[in-house]
């Protein structure tokens, strides 16, 4: 077995030129062949690519989809974020546990199946959803869970279930997915008919500097949520010293409630690749990398095919469109389940075959990014917009949207609404207008910007969604009557506790402390001081964390504290005797009582 494993590993490493920067691909492949990446396998990989074993181990242990232990032949990853739980994920989980006779987090004794929870898999518009190996199943019911369990037990997979395909390219033979686009409203930007190469033709007719000038004139800002001006980013990258430069596409949309990139990747990948190629031309890069989240593995064959079509058409490769010296190609880098990798410097780390740790800034990626070279990291949607700008001109784009936020934006709306899905709307749309479109006029709150965003109260529904007022990378989660907003905040804190990379203390420790204190309040054991503590701690995490995750992770608690204070005030009680209501002596000595074998003489007094 070991010799066999060694041969397999050598072959896999060879496929990636024994390059340690391709560690993600190497360990992913090893895992898919042998079900896990054992210590032996790590040692062999390390020897072949020439790194220390601990470097391989640090990658394997970091990513949720990688594991040292052998996983079951079928891995069921059920999404357990707030939205999926709103729609019955817990009941589905129970069914799976009952059917397979194991708990979540376990692998069945016969090695057939592993049950795992996973945070948002980008299917919040069709919840509850799960990944069964790489296959997505949506709108799960307990009946469906039973059917799936039966199929797994009888056939070792769900292929024979012949689950119906979704709409559009989800039914494409290379995609073959149950996913639905739920594309509810198209503007005339991303999902319009697009002729391959039309943007690129206009770009190469200009100098790279002119292209950047165009993008700047369009006032396009980053669609991932942070809103950095795209033209400026490209200009910095172009101007930075470096013999090689890179274009990275952030397709790691992991923010709970975001799924608009999924629809772009399904319906308009060519436009995105075109935008990346335009960026390559403008910046002077020869290589582009799409960092695709592991959850979207089902789209890779389709995307590779789209890339090949562009190569065949002369839109990727050497001397593109006959322009001498304009060489550019794109590869897809698969992620492996880590929210933090949506942060651009963590994304770069991951592309380099490392743990998804964020890097220190400065230097910024534009100066020193991927492999230490100047790199522009942009969102999927940003590249699409850039391509359209080159096709139709900067003024056409700039006139749409609002003052500080030009253009149209994709919103992915989920939660308690009649029509969840993707909406392409101009920036400056108010929350109220959006709620009317999605059929959720009775919302008690709207979470704008995902887990790290803002919980907006009804009194702020007149606010505009744009970079200056309510910023979002696309995620809009509607919270309807009867939902518990503190539970929402709590589920987001659970998410951040899990997804913190652990590098800096404020984020690693702070988020856990904040979550625990919130639990104390939810349990009715809180005091008014606890609310002050949560505010203080939240602001400390915000102002002292190393990257965007910790700088925003306290938002759900801080914004619910600010906007829904009465919910908290109703739960906390002043302690009259100065004792902490959260402490129970009975609980605290329970363990001792069972070990020593006698009852406490104190707490029974």
């Amino acid at each position: 077995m070991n010799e066999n494993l060694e041969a397999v590993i050598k072959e896999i490493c060879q496929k990636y030129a024994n390059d340690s920067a391709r560690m993600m691909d190497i360990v992913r492949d090893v895992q898919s062949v042998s079900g896990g990446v054992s210590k032996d396998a790590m040692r062999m990989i390390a020897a072949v690519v020439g790194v220390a074993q601990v470097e391989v181990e640090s990658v394997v242990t970091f990513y949720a989809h990688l594991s040292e232990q052998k996983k079951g032949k079928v891995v069921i990853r059920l999404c357990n974020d707030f939205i999926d739980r709103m729609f019955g994920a817990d009941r589905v989980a129970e069914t799976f546990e009952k059917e397979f006779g194991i708990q979540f987090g376990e692998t069945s004794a016969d090695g057939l199946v592993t049950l795992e929870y996973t945070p948002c898999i980008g299917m919040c518009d069709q919840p509850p959803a799960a990944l069964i190996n790489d296959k997505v199943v949506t709108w799960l019911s307990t009946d469906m869970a039973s059917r799936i369990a039966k199929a797994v037990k009888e056939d070792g997979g769900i292929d024979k279930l012949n689950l119906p395909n979704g709409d559009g390219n989800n039914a494409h033979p290379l995609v073959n997915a149950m996913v639905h686009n739920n594309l509810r409203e198209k503007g005339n930007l991303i999902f319009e008919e697009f002729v391959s190469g039309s943007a690129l033709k206009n770009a190469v007719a200009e100098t790279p500097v002119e292209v950047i000038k165009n993008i700047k004139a369009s006032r396009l800002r980053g669609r991932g949520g942070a809103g950095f001006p795209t033209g400026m980013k490209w200009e910095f990258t172009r101007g930075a010293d470096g013999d090689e430069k890179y274009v990275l596409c952030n397709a790691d949309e992991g923010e709970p409630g975001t799924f608009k990139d999924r629809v772009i990747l399904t319906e308009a990948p060519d436009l995105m690749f075109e935008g990346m190629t335009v960026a390559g031309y403008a910046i002077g890069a020869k290589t582009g990398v799409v960092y695709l989240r592991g959850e979207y593995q089902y789209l890779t064959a389709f995307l590779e095919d789209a890339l090949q079509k562009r190569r065949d058409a002369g839109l990727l490769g050497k001397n593109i469109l006959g322009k001498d010296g304009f060489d550019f190609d794109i590869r897809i880098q698969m992620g492996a389940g880590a929210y933090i990798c949506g942060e651009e410097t963590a994304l770069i780390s991951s592309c380099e075959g490392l743990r998804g740790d964020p890097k220190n800034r400065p230097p910024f990626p534009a100066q020193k990014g991927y492999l230490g070279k100047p790199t522009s990291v942009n969102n999927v949607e940003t590249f699409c917009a850039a391509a359209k700008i080159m096709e139709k001109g900067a003024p056409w784009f700039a006139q749409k949207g609002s003052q500080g936020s030009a253009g149209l934006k994709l919103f992915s709306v989920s939660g308690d609404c009649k029509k969840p899905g993707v909406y392409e709307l101009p920036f400056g749309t108010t929350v109220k207008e959006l709620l009317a479109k999605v059929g959720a006029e009775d919302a008690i709150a709207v979470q704008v910007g995902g887990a790290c965003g803002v919980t907006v109260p009804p009194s702020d529904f007149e606010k505009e969604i744009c970079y200056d007022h309510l910023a979002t990378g696309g995620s809009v989660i509607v919270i309807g009557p009867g939902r518990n907003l503190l539970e929402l905040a709590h589920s987001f804190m659970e998410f951040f506790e899990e997804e913190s990379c652990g590098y800096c203390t404020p984020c690693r420790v702070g988020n856990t402390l904040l979550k625990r204190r919130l639990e104390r309040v939810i349990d009715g054991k809180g005091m008014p001081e606890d609310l002050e503590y949560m505010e203080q701690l939240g602001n400390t995490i915000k102002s002292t964390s190393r990257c965007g995750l910790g700088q925003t992770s306290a938002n759900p608690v801080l914004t619910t504290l600010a906007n829904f204070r009465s919910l908290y005030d109703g739960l906390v009680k002043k302690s009259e005797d100065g004792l902490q209501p959260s402490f129970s002596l009975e609980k605290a000595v329970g363990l001792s009582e069972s070990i020593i074998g006698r009852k406490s003489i104190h707490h029974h007094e």
Partner: protein
Amino acid sequence: MTKPKIATTSLAGCFGCHMSILDIDDRILKLVELIEFNKSPVNDIKKFTERCLVGLIEGGCCNEENVHVLQDFRKNCDVLISLGDCAIMGGIPAMRNSVPLKECFEEAYLNGVTVFNPAGKIPSDKELPLLLDRVYPCSEIVKMDYHMPGCPPSADTIWETLVALLNNKPLDLPYELVKYD
């Protein structure tokens, strides 16, 4: 006029903070002019006889008796001060929090290299207070009014703090007294 009363105790601590109280040296004579010690190891008074202005708490809570003493202090003192790092955050005793309780018992009473325990039993005498599942900082058991950091807080820190409190003045400690690296 009666003098304000002070009580002190050492819970899951090493008595180092109490040593630091004694380290105020001859100022202790001045101190007894200003205050009167009630329940405290300093005078060996075991039970509160009067309500106190200040309670100084050394150490966190590692067993049920600690909890009782601390709750008793909260009932009998107007102002409670965590004296030193163990009271504030558990300190050295809290290092056991990462070890399962059963293993702690077994190491202490059964498996430790210096253990002599022919009966091979973990003691269960009623005189021995039961350990808590983990070591708690005082603030998780009762409301603490102030925290005096240090391991131990220096005698000067303790002196300045008490004097400021007794004179109802704001406390302004020089940097040297609160820097610990």
